[in-house]
């Protein structure tokens, strides 16, 4: 990845106001989640007297049905949501890139087998499969990350494969072979650096998908278990009180919405910036 491309990203980011906003918002979420321990409240400490308070000076986001400070809980929930998003993106990118490059580079029957496998996986409604798997495995963050990762890498694999197909025809890949390079090193040193922008874009968009999936799974009670919470599981427990405490659904709901939106906007910006002939007419 070279400097010029990063400069392109920077330029695109500052040019596009939505993009800048999305970026700043994500950074704010990230910092807030990281420094959640600074909150004066214990996210798991119940206090029945304070239950279901509306947002006020002491409790910024009010309190939940057990009287826990909702703001603090939202922050800790952000940790889970973001961590699951990032980690499952990494799982998906690693599997997707490996399968995609191997499939594209070697071609032939290897390509056929891998791509058919990908198609089979894609054809199964993954959400139900996830539900099923989740029921058999011990619920928790690791399980979530692995399951979401295992069911979202196929898109990445297909994109990476098609990019690999085009890169491997380049002269320098032939030259790498001509100078005695092994296939593994040709892939890691010559092909992957060239498709890195694509992988980054696909990865960014994948985070958004992962966060959504995590929320849905947690909403159905299959994700993070009590007393820990993620935005999705908070929505789940909030639905029983939607009439008396609207804020319980509002905050985690909006946070999911904004985070996913931000990642999507960011992915779009990266795509424009990395594209050889982008919207600004800049040549490669």
């Amino acid at each position: 990845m070279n400097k010029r491309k990063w400069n392109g990203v920077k330029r695109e980011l500052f040019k596009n106001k939505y993009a800048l906003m999305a970026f700043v918002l994500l950074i704010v979420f990230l910092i807030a989640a990281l420094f959640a321990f600074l909150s004066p409240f214990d996210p798991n400490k119940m206090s029945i007297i304070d239950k279901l308070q509306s947002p006020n000076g002491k409790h910024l986001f009010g309190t939940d049905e057990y009287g826990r400070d909702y703001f603090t809980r939202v922050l800790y929930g952000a940790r889970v949501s973001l961590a699951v998003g990032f980690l499952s993106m990494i799982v998906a990118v690693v599997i997707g890139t490996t399968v995609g490059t191997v499939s594209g580079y070697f071609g032939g029957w290897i390509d056929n087998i891998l791509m058919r496998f990908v198609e089979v996986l894609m054809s199964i409604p993954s959400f139900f499969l996830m539900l099923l798997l989740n029921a058999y495995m011990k619920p928790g963050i690791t399980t979530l990350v692995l399951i979401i990762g295992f069911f979202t890498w196929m898109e990445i694999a297909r994109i990476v494969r098609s990019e690999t197909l085009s890169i491997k025809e380049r002269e320098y890949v032939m030259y790498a072979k001509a100078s005695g390079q092994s296939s593994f090193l040709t892939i890691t040193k010559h092909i992957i650096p060239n498709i890195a922008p694509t992988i980054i874009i696909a990865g960014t968009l994948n985070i958004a998908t992962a966060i959504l999936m995590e929320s849905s799974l947690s909403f159905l009670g299959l994700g993070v278990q009590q007393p820990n919470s993620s935005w999705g599981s908070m929505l789940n427990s909030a639905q029983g009180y939607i009439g008396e405490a609207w804020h319980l659904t509002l905050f985690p709901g909006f946070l999911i919405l904004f985070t996913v939106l931000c990642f999507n906007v960011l992915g779009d910006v990266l795509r424009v910036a990395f594209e050889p002939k982008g919207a600004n007419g800049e040549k490669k």
Partner: protein
Amino acid sequence: MAEKLLEVVDLKTSFYTGAGEVQAVRGVSFQLEKGEVLGIVGESGSGKSVMAKSIMSLIQSPGKIKQGDITWRGENLLGKSEKQLRAIRGNEISLISQDPMSALNPVVKIGKQMTEVIIRHQRVGKKEAEKRAVDLLGKVGISSPEERLKQYPHELSGGMKQRIMIGMSISCQPELLIADEPTTALDVTIQSQILNLMSALKDKEQMALILITHDLGVVAENCERVLVMYGGLIMEEGPVKELFQNPKHPYTEGLLRSLPKRSNGVKERLVPIQGSPPDLLNPPQGCPFADRCPYVMDKCAELPPYFKVDSERKTMCWLHESEEGDNHE
């Protein structure tokens, strides 16, 4: 006679496309001695590059080496595994390709690309490899080599990139350097610099050189022996001087006539070769040049064998059937 380095016998390489089998190389035989400079000339599509890639076993699907033997220092290259080939590629046989702009990876620094080859074949550490890369860049005439190593290919000019390619390809002191149109993408002044550099290096490193080009001037200046390829076959073979002064095959004759002469100051019209090269999808049964040959005879419908014209020359043309050893003009 010097030591035989490379021997190619009846090499046939085809590409299996949707339209059918494209026979790019249709039975080529030649040998190369140690330290020799062999020129291969021919127009586009005559099979030069495919032959070069076949020698290094770099033909990719849908291409396939159909038949033939390639013997490298007494060992059959075609029987070797990918792993054994890897030890030879870049180490004993090196390739310089046509276009330096696309032969270097645009997103990897020069230094990394150079040291990669050195570390792989010479089993030295990173520091030592970097030192060697600096030496090599000095050898190929690049100023401030340390700085160049930290640059990306797009920061350098075409001539510099080709120098770097040459530096990379001689980094392991190969026995044979195959230069596939090394100067096509460069302008004329740089061209001669690069060619001079290659012949100087060739003397210094004592390697053999196969120079593939469509530029007859380049061949005349740099090679000892030359193969003229046409339609996937070798039309004529011989020492450069004799072949150029007294071409035996009508195709060679046509090639030479289509070049501007500067000799006597008389203005002369160039004589192009009429027609176009044969379709390698359905190559003609007989001599591939028959359609364009001014001397075409009935017999040309049959593929001629090689006729020895004198001790070092042979040609694939019926004109020389009866006059083996004689001169034709």
